[in-house]
């Protein structure tokens, strides 16, 4: 077996794998965002049983490692006769994972809108849906931006877990290149640098949003 060296084409392979990391992150955040949004609404609902169901969902997702969600959707469903392609299994489990955390983050944001805003809008004869739509959610959205972007950084890093089921994202690509070159130091420095290139601007963005939120705590 001929050992390759870590060169330009190997680096190119890592970059294309980074693309899959980004794709998986986008799937997780949009899928998790949609599910998480409804869970957050249910969590702040006036119906007790809706709150309980939502709270239980959040507790379960946050209480088990992402890895277990991944194994369950990949191996569990294949036992049931459903052979999921790695991208689908990875996308589904990251979506479930993200939904549990986003729901909890957003619940906090919805509840941090002062209760006087509920009372004022209620006194203007708005329905509960109108209160959410025109008064509460726009304010919650502003509050949620820093922590949501901050969570996106966690998702980018946590997508590396999906390498375990053979999904070739950045971490998995690093392993493959390392197996072929056996230059772990170079390879994984490159992998880490690529993660950093994505995560660092996001963390900075999150910090900037946070500062802006506090500078102008209203509007």
């Amino acid at each position, binding site marked *: 077996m001929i050992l390759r060296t870590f060169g330009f084409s190997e680096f190119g392979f890592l970059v294309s794998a980074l693309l899959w990391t980004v794709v998986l992150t986008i799937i997780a955040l949009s899928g998790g965002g949609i599910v998480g949004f409804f869970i957050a609404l249910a969590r702040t609902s006036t119906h007790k049983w809706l709150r309980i169901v939502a709270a239980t969902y959040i507790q379960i997702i946050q209480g088990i490692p992402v890895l277990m969600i991944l194994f369950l959707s990949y191996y569990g469903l294949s036992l049931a006769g459903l052979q999921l392609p790695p991208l689908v299994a990875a996308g589904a489990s990251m979506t479930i994972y993200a939904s549990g955390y986003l729901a909890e983050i957003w619940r906090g944001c919805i509840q941090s809108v002062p209760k006087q*805003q509920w009372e004022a*809008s209620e*006194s*203007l*004869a*708005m*329905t*509960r849906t*109108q209160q959410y739509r025109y008064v509460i959610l726009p304010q919650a959205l502003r509050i949620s931006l820093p922590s949501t972007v901050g969570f996106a950084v966690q998702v980018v890093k946590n997508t590396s877990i999906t390498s375990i089921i053979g999904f070739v994202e950045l971490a998995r690509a690093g392993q493959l290149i390392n197996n072929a070159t056996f230059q772990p130091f170079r390879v994984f420095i490159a992998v880490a640098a690529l993660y950093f290139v994505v995560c660092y601007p996001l963390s900075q963005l999150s910090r900037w949003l946070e500062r802006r939120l506090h500078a102008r705590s209203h*509007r």
Partner: protein
Amino acid sequence: MPEVIVENVHKSFGMVEVLKGVSLTVERGEVIALIGRSGSGKSTLLRCINGLEKINSGRIEIAGHTVSSDPKQLRALRTDVGIVFQSYNLFPHLSVGENIMLAPKIVKNVAKAQTRETAERVLKLVGLSEKFDAYPDELSGGQQQRVAIARSLAMQPKVMLFDEVTSALDPELTEEVLNVMEQLARDGMTMILVTHEMAFARRVATKTIFMHQGKIWEEGLSKQLFSDPQTPELRQFVKADVK
């Protein structure tokens, strides 16, 4: 037929009874001042009247609506009853104009051009025409409170409730808000106002109600009530205020 009827209303928070059988009526165009010590139940009474708090027993009718726990009925009631709070509670993400136009647009489905017209009219009424595009955090407390009043008025209510709307304001800002309320009273609005401004109550309110320990302790024509209090509690309350 009175515009507001409150009949033997009881209200408890947990084990604590805060309203112990309150009854009052307000005729159309009357201005009622609610006064009393902190904790005597003034805010609670006002919040029961527009259904923000549920009563334990008794009956409340206002502007032709009965206060119930049915959301639809409550919304119908609230299109006819405005309330303004001590803490203004403007929507911080919306401009002054948007604050005022929102409810007429989405609740009453009034056409856009007309909501704008109404908004401009009520803003003028509170003396803030030039602030249409400003945001709440660019306004002083007094200005914010006047916008809050304008926002309520844009719904064209039949009755207005005010809960210590000047308590958070400096004296010089208090005046501008009181002037707006006095103008409203002159224009014939039916109003119930909780206030600590005794001079204002005496001058503007047709009747004043003194609440004490969750009950209406004493009530009467404002001038009479202030100049000739019958109960020792009111006498002491009025004296403490003159001080």
